[in-house]
């Protein structure tokens, strides 16, 4: 069971209160009609899936119901930080950029 710090509630709560949304910092293209099929596919379907550090979006579904971001290791599952929407991670590697 992960123990997750919600940056809005400023509290550690159990994983069951949260849900994962997926890779963080994905920006919806401003002009989708100008994209190539490849670029559109990449926006829709292609995710980083790193074996290592990952920035991902979570939601505190059964708490404050706000979205936030997390930097987590996908092998050890260790959570290195959680941060609010609109903020950038403070921990990065070549892979996660």
């Amino acid at each position, binding site marked *: *069971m*992960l123990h997750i710090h919600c940056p809005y509630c400023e509290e550690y709560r159990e*994983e*069951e209160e949260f*849900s*994962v949304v*997926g890779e963080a910092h994905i920006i919806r293209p401003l002009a989708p009609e100008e994209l190539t*099929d*490849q670029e559109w*596919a*990449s926006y*829709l*379907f*292609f*995710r980083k*899936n*790193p*074996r290592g550090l*990952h920035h*991902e979006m979570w939601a505190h579904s059964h708490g404050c119901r706000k979205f936030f971001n997390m930097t*987590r290791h*996908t*092998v*050890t*599952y260790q959570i290195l930080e959680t941060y609010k929407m609109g903020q950038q991670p403070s921990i990065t590697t070549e892979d996660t950029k």
Partner: protein
Amino acid sequence: MQKYSGFGLLKHSMSHHENWQRVWRNPAPKKHYDVVIVGGGGHGLATAYYMAKEHGLTNIAVVEKGYLGGGNTARNTTIVRSNYLWDEAAHLYEHSLKLWEGLAQDLNYNLMFSQRGVLNLGHSLQDMRDIERRVNANRLNGIDSQVLNNAQVQAKVPILDCSKNARYPVMGASWQARGGTARHDAVAWGFARAADALGVDLLQQTEVTGIRRKDGAVCGVETNRGFISADKVACVASGNSSTLAKMVGIDLPLESHPLQAMVSEPIKPILDTVVMSNHVHGYLSQSDKGDLVIGAGIDSYLGYGQRGSFDVVEHTIAAIIEMFPIFSRVRLNRAWGGVVDTCPDACPIISKTHIKGLYFNCGWGTGGFKATPGSGQVFAHTVAKDEPHPLAKAFNIDRFTSGKLIDEHGAAGVAH
């Protein structure tokens, strides 16, 4: 290869079973192979077997970082069925099911393949509509499939709570009588033994750390045991496929998630079929040893750790107990996780890549065990002939760009 038979068993009992031939060799890597298959799970080993048997390629190797069948092959809940909704998927899985039906004889290895039937329960009106649609689609594709009502389900599984007051009311089910289970490690071992007998080198404890290219084409793999040159490299690494693809800068639309399963202590025979409920994420059968084999839903975060969270296990157990109150006192023996490579449309990728000589077979996610022989056969064809097998064509990586997805989500492919 020493042939296994009842007579052989008797003969070897005379010498206290001390003179059995080794099941496969443990060779040192050669300098060069025509094809290197990365991943010694069921799919990789089946690929090697069919490549040697049907395409006459015997200078090939299977490279496995751990031991044969140590990945998802020996971590799954062994459910085999072919009742998928869309034509492309249905044909592929049905092809595989047909191979299962003669596989133990073909490999001369007891796979304990048991066609005990598979029930997919419907708990709501929508479930039942989806089931009817899928069963009709299956029948049009020549796949045995039936809709059962509440009373028929109850007759098949007397211990299932089919009463009106059930927490998850059973409104009916789809039934595939030819579906069932098989012994998963035996599948890996059977293919390994048969491939080895045809001259395939099985290289265990050999991890691929890089894929070398020359003039835009593949020329071999870097491993912890040195460089191995190869004309073609075929990657069949399930949850770790993205990691291999990244070595050559290829993006795959995969996400690796933990998927968990568990077994109970062995009990007397009580359940003679497979019961699946996509709705509550619980899957159940009883092994020949007597333990209840239970599959959970996936953990929704990315995870390469071969373990997931307890609340997923708890949720599954709660659902199983609601459906089978009789099991409330049964104790669990073991629980574990695997890393499954899920694809956006819940269908596999069996494909050439833009790099000459490099192929991928992945994205089987939560349900690839049932496809082991079929996957191996069509992938062997795809690699050996450098053109997709007719059944594999639709599973090209280009479908994510063209939009021609094969959306098995919800319909049949939610899990296992």
